[in-house]
């Protein structure tokens, strides 16, 4: 530890300890969501208000299933990183680790549940 200079520890890491990886991930997912969000709103809005049979038939078609599934997946990754950024700003110590883990698990759980539902209706 004594031989590791402060500069060496800081180079390329930034306050997030992992350089610009997460910023880049946010850039990629936000560009994807820029396209997916309007498509999702239109196709999801078309299904909303229908009976269960109508909704299941809607998501059995390739386009609504793919757009909805992709949006849920990409949005979950984007949310996971965004909520982590917020936690790291306001929460400290053990609570920070707890909430990062909890929200990461929740993000993936929601994405998996949504994609499972889409697959069940589509296949």
């Amino acid at each position, binding site marked *: 530890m004594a031989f590791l200079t402060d500069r060496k520890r800081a180079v390329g890491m930034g306050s997030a300890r992992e350089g610009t990886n997460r910023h880049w991930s946010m*850039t990629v997912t936000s560009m994807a969501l820029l396209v997916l969000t309007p498509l999702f709103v239109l196709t999801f809005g078309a299904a909303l208000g229908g009976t269960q049979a109508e909704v299941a038939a809607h998501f059995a078609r390739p386009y609504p299933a793919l757009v909805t599934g992709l949006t849920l997946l990409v949005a979950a990754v984007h949310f996971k990183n*965004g909520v982590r950024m917020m936690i790291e700003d306001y929460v400290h110590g053990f609570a920070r680790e707890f909430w990062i883990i909890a929200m990461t698990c929740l993000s993936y759980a929601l994405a998996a549940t949504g994609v499972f539902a889409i697959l069940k209706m589509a296949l």
Partner: protein
Amino acid sequence: MAEDMRSKRPLSPHLTIYRPQMTSMSSILVRISGNALLVGFAMVVWWLLAAASSADYFAVADGFVQSWFGQFIILGSVWALWYHLLGGLRHLIWDQGKMLEIEQAEKLGWAAIVGSVVLTALTYVIV
């Protein structure tokens, strides 16, 4: 050495001493809208799972979504979705090193606020 300094070094003045600015408020709203979308996200996933399960379960989830509270969540989520999208677009523009002058940044902030209301209204007209 850096570890020792961390607890002692003074914090520069931030949130508590600044008058609210258009740029900071519109930025904070991006964070709030993005994180609040968890509620709408969870409701959408629940509704999809119910639709994939059975007509009985769908009636429960759809009943919630169609209730005034569910509709309120949808309205809020649609607005949050558009505001967060436009606010995020602002960050993508800034990342390119463009529109960083104060007047330009404030214009983008107003564009996001007005744009999100317009897009929300448009969503309700079209969908």
